[in-house]
């Protein structure tokens, strides 16, 4: 199907860093099954560096590819660098997404943020709450 770029298809067919993680330092889950997309991101963090990432996704091809590419973009990065990843960068890394699939890249960005927030919460690290909008207010699902 020429709906997706080669990079999207590659990440979809051969997803990187896929699966569950034992004892993660942070876990984030965004989206909902009702909308048809759920992304779950697991982080292993040592000395503020993301040493391992895993993801699980229920969703369409672009949702799976977006989460796969996002894991590659944050592996080995500092927590701050991971937080700076935007949905636009996810789209660029995939070589583009069809307009009605852009919300998948937003979910990828949100899943990273949600996992980092969980890490902060678990470790009592102070952070600016306004940087982490909750799922209900994000509206990414409505971006079709």
């Amino acid at each position, binding site marked *: 199907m020429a709906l997706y770029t080669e990079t999207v298809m590659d990440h979809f067919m051969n997803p990187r860093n896929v699966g569950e993680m034992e004892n993660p330092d942070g876990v984030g889950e965004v989206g909902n099954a*009702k909308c048809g997309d759920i992304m779950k991101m697991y982080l292993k963090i040592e000395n503020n560096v993301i040493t391992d990432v895993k993801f699980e996704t229920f969703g369409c091809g672009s949702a799976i590819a977006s989460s796969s590419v996002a894991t590659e973009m944050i592996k080995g990065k500092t927590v701050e660098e991971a937080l700076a990843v935007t949905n636009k960068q996810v789209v660029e890394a995939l070589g583009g997404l069809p307009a009605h699939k852009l919300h998948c890249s937003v979910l990828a960005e949100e899943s990273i943020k949600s996992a980092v927030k969980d890490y902060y919460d678990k470790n009592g690290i102070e952070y600016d709450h306004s940087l982490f909008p909750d799922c209900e207010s994000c509206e990414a699902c409505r971006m079709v």
Partner: protein
Amino acid sequence: MIYADNAATTKLSQTALNAMLPYLTEGYGNPSSLHSVGQAAAEALQSAREDVAACLNASPREILFTSGGSEADNQAILSAARIGERKGKKHIISTAFEHHAVLHTLQKLQKQGFEVELLPVGSVGTVIAEQVRAAIREDTCLVTVMFANNEIGSILPIAEIGAVCREKGVLFHTDAVQAAGHLPIDVQAQNIDMLSLSAHKFHGPKGVGALYVKTGIPVTPLIEGGAQERGKRAGTENVPAIVGMAAALKEAVANLGETAKKMTALRDQLIAGLAKIPHSALNGDPVNRLPGNVNFCFEGIEGESLLLLLDAKGICASSGSACTSGSLDPSHVLLAIGRPHEVAHGSLRLSLCEANTQEEIDYILTETPKIVERLRSLSPVWHDLMNGKRQFIL
């Protein structure tokens, strides 16, 4: 490549192509022209009209050629509404799982002050004649119920519904786009006043269809212009397409019994095989079902990714997931039979034709369970279901 998406469209048959070729080459006349080239086209048109009429047990004057199923549906419904309006009748009965060509036309009429009642289709996905009887009122001007559903394959009791409408004196239209060429149609025996069909669903060309309108029912043109189709549909006729449609329909109807038998056998193997996948469910009427239709929901996965992986294995299918429709909601048909959103996203439709083989069915049945399993292994929903954090629906 295995093509199992025949409810979306079919391959043009050799018979249809052969019938069309002369009218794409030497027989290019305009049927409205007086000269011999034009008259040859007019004769081809007339002969196509006779063939289509014969396939429906209608008379040729009752057949109106259109650009396809959508146009036929629009014209039938709008015509009935105009007739009703003149008598002060503005109540229309239909079903919750019609094609959008019907539903969107009804929505348009709603904005014009019509009251539209969509009958529920239950978990099996059908309506019974008694539901229609109970819904008919003094001011009902139209009942429009599809012959067979395009997504889940249910075949509806059209003759019985038609009989109720006759008895009550209400116009009855049926969208037979998925039925024509696949199921026996007899507009007289089945009490049908108006019927839509579309050539590309029975190995005819795309962009051509027909509307049967029983004699005496006035039709409102959707396109104004010349006097083609006796003033009911302006525009120079698409002669090659119409000729191809007639040839395809004639062939499909002639072989109908034999084809249905073969396809039903393959279909039932697919259904039995896919039903072995844990937490899956067949959608649509298990008994009164189109010979080529298979439609399942698989819990814990999403349909678009399923289609992509099937395509990578050379299997062409379709799904009712939101991602495949470009909208937020999954198929209205699956929602109408009561599938919750999360399950409706994980649907798969395989629709067969007579060209599908036993080997293809075997291959689909080896590949599909592996693909479902692979997607479930990536799915956080599936893991939640497996470790009891989420309740199984199927």
